[in-house]
């Protein structure tokens, strides 16, 4: 009987376990502050260490330990990678887990030194709470300010000031209060919801799981009691406007079309009206489907599949949202950027921006200022180096839907990816959209591209002629346009002459200006395509990244890259505008092919060697390519 009771008690305890869900927190501090000791203590006291792990720990403590003869070096338990154990430092984010009866805890254990700011930011990006560790003997240091700043910047709402090593500070109440008031001067200027100071000794366990006898003067909670009871953002997020970024279109058969995703904020029920943020189209929710049956509502945190009452254009990357409180939609916005790569950030360079399921080329147009994480001061700067933070303006090739990061972490954040190495180079937190576009929601138009194109009896697209000056781009483009016009096609031609003198006359020839030049040309070409035209563009456009950027502005198959290829000697000989002569004489600098590089296309749709054929033959090949691509019949 007694055994049966124990059994049912344990099972009912288990089913109650985790009733408060999951709390994710980050520990900030260095090994010297006792960070690893604190985490080890939490694991040890929550009885999460198994006998064999303790045995390994005892053995390793003797071999590598730094805490003295008879104490266990908890840090060894945590520092997973061999290199770290040898160097005695923690270099990467490690995740630890422990459960109490109330909650499951996910701890991001990150290094404290300035050169690992990016690691700390990574751990902080998913955390609800930050434990800022301070050594009672040292008090508030520069790194304490830095950790506090980053935690706040990454959107953590609850800070715990854990004043550690109270055992070697005589458990002094006045020392604790001194540190607390120093700290509050730093942290109160930031936006935390709660700041909770707790005096602890991680080594001896004071105020971790049970109240410290040596510090009976402390009238606040123990660390664990606070972690178990602190309210996470979950509830508050559920009361914000509805958002669900669409991850995957669920289409098992012709009768079912649902949009799968995780609700990031708010709640929604069948019958509610939603808007697809990017297209601006609205529909009502018909069903909320899960493998556990249809649900009467979906709340922030739920992974569901939403079926709408009518077919509207929704695909991966779009955000289903509350039509009365829509996300912003813009191709330009201000954001805080944390640079995470060795190679520095250059304004104007094209990166890939990933925000939820949205992926688009983007560049930093302006670095407004850098932020000194130690002093919280703004500093001027032209670029961002590894671990530096700056407030920037970014421009994307395609408009994206987003919220300010301070409102919504999931829909307000993005990463930047290097287009060639594929490394994640930056983390971004959006502040606000720029330009009028930000609050002018795309109005769904009844006459669209396909209708305009159908009226002209053609499929619109861009013929992009790239190559050295004098290779024959404009000559061929001119012939092509003539042939198209003769065939009754509707065309337009863009080249340096009609763009540089008007739209782009404010731009020079620096790298940043070249990127902006091509971006604007791409946008104009895109509008002409939307108008149903076949557009010829003749630009040297020396860099692959820029040509790729324009390609990605258009639907697949609508960008036809024509590499007009002639040897440099031939181009210099032709020299139709006398530019090579000027370059040789030193009158022009940064002239492509001469003293500035040309990146030839790797896989152009068409490769014309103009040294080996007449301009007319070349134009004929372009026409054939248009037929092959299905743009003209």
């Amino acid at each position, binding site marked *: 009987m007694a055994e049966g009771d124990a059994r049912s008690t344990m099972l009912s305890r288990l089913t109650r*376990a985790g009733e408060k869900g999951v709390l994710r927190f980050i520990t900030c501090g260095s090994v010297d502050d006792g960070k690893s000791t604190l985490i080890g203590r939490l694991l040890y006291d929550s009885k999460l260490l*198994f006998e064999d792990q303790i045995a390994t720990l005892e053995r390793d403590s003797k071999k590598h330990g730094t805490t003295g003869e008879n104490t266990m070096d908890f840090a060894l338990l945590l520092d997973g*990678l061999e290199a770290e154990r040898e160097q005695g430092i923690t270099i990467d984010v490690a995740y630890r887990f422990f459960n109490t009866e109330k909650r499951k805890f996910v701890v991001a254990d990150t290094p404290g030194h300035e050169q690992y700011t990016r690691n700390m930011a990574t751990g902080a990006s998913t955390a609800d709470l930050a434990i800022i560790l301070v050594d009672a003997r040292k008090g508030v240091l520069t790194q304490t300010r830095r950790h506090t700043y980053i935690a706040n910047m990454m959107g953590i709402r609850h800070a715990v000031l854990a004043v550690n090593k109270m055992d070697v500070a005589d458990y002094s109440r006045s020392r604790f209060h001194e540190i607390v008031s120093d700290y509050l001067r730093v942290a109160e200027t930031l936006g935390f919801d709660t700041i909770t100071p707790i005096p602890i000794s991680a080594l001896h366990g004071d105020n971790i799981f049970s109240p410290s006898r040596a510090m009976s003067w402390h009238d606040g909670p123990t660390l664990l009691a606070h972690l178990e009871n602190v309210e996470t953002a979950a509830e508050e997020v559920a009361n914000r406007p509805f958002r669900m970024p669409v991850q995957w279109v669920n289409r098992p058969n012709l009768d079912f079309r649902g949009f799968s995703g995780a609700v990031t904020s708010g709640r929604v029920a069948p019958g509610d009206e939603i808007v697809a943020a990017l297209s601006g189209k609205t529909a009502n929710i018909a069903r909320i489907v899960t493998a556990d049956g249809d649900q009467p509502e979906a709340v922030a945190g739920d992974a569901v599949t939403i079926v709408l009452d009518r077919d509207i254009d929704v695909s991966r990357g779009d955000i289903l949202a509350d039509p009365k409180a829509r996300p912003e939609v813009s191709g330009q916005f201000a954001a805080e950027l944390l640079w995470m790569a060795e190679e520095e950030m250059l304004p104007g360079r094209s990166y890939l921006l990933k925000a939820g399921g949205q992926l688009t080329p983007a560049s930093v147009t302006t670095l407004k200022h850098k932020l000194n994480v130690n002093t919280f001061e703004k500093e001027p700067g032209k670029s961002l180096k590894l671990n530096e933070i700056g407030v920037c303006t970014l421009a994307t090739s395609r408009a994206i839907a987003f919220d300010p990061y301070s409102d919504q972490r999931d829909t307000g954040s993005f990463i930047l990816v290097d287009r060639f190495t594929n490394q994640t180079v930056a983390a971004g937190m959006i502040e606000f959209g720029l330009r009028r576009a930000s609050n002018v929601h795309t109005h769904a138009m009844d006459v669209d591209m396909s209708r305009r194109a159908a009226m002209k009896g053609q499929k619109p697209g861009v013929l992009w002629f790239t190559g050295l000056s004098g290779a024959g781009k404009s000559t061929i483009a001119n012939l092509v346009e003539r042939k198209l016009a003769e065939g009754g096609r509707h065309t337009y031609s863009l080249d340096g002459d009609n763009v540089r003198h008007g739209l782009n006359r404010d731009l020079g020839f620096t790298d940043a200006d070249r990127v902006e030049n091509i971006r604007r040309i791409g946008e104009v070409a895109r509008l002409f395509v939307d108008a149903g035209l076949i557009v010829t563009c003749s630009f040297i456009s020396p860099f692959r990244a820029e040509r790729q950027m324009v390609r990605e502005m258009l639907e697949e198959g609508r960008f036809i890259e024509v590499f007009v290829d002639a040897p440099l000697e031939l181009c210099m000989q032709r020299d139709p505008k006398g530019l090579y002569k000027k370059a040789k004489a030193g009158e022009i600098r940064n002239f492509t092919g001469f003293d500035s590089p040309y990146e030839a296309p790797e896989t152009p749709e068409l490769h014309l060697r103009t040294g080996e054929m007449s301009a007319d033959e070349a134009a004929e090949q372009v026409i054939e390519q248009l037929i092959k691509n299905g743009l003209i019949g």
Partner: protein
Amino acid sequence: MSDIATDLKNYAGRFLAGANPRSRPLSPHLKALEAESIHIMREVAAEFSNPVMLYSIGKDSAVMLHLALKAFYPSRPPFPLQHVDTGWKFRDMITYRDTLASALGLELRVEMNQEGIARGINPFDSGSNLHTQVMKTEALRNAMNSHRYDAAFGGARRDEEKSRAKERIFSFRDDHHAWDPRNQRPELWRTFNTRIRQGESIRVFPLSNWTELDIWQYILEEDIPIVPLYLAADRPVVERSGTLLMVDDDRFPLQPGETPQMRRIRFRTLGCYPLTGAIESDAASLEDIVLEMLTARTSERSGRLIDHDESGSMEKKKREGYF
């Protein structure tokens, strides 16, 4: 415990369209973990062209597959299952694997390193290191190469072993399938960098943030059928240097004077039978297992002989491409 084949058939029926709603709500922390895993799986389905689920038949794989069935419902998981068979798995595992795959109607691909078999590699004579290297690591590499998978789900959890605590959820592998712990992509929020070049791949660990207890509690609450070897029964074993090994077939070379004895045992983890230690236990139901877990004092990987060589051994294997 009823017949496993019937259990698996009933289980598959739960994922047909018009399935029954669950009777009781999932514990809040499991619901959060479930939603996180589902989010990860959908990202993979949306962003990769040739993903696969590395399926190893054990409890973690059972949970991972269950999550995939839920993530894409009412669609089927849009990827096949890939099992790397060393030829030394418990017979019950293979029966369970084949019955489940056919009941669910999922494509199951099995890779076995034929060259290793021809060389006579086996866990008894070759030793656990060589056997694992050839029959597991190399076989996995062969499967990745021949099918050109660009993403592969694995059931590894961060709480299993120290080197895993620092691994990303989307873990980049170069074109030799190697992991470089010094050069991992930062992973922020729920935004995963899935960009790779030809030949490179990503290992994806949707169970990263689950613990062993979470897994068992989820299996219990979701009523997921598992290989019966996890439950205690009388089975033939021999004891070698403190480890209980089950004599699963007649390939087990008995040493002079060694006779298998029937002991009441179960397994906390399943792998190659000659390399997997059993524990003595009376836990014959899922509830019993969870109760045993709550009072357990030995971590689960201690039953795996391959981790023991030295503390850094798992990290070494992972750099070489072990799962």
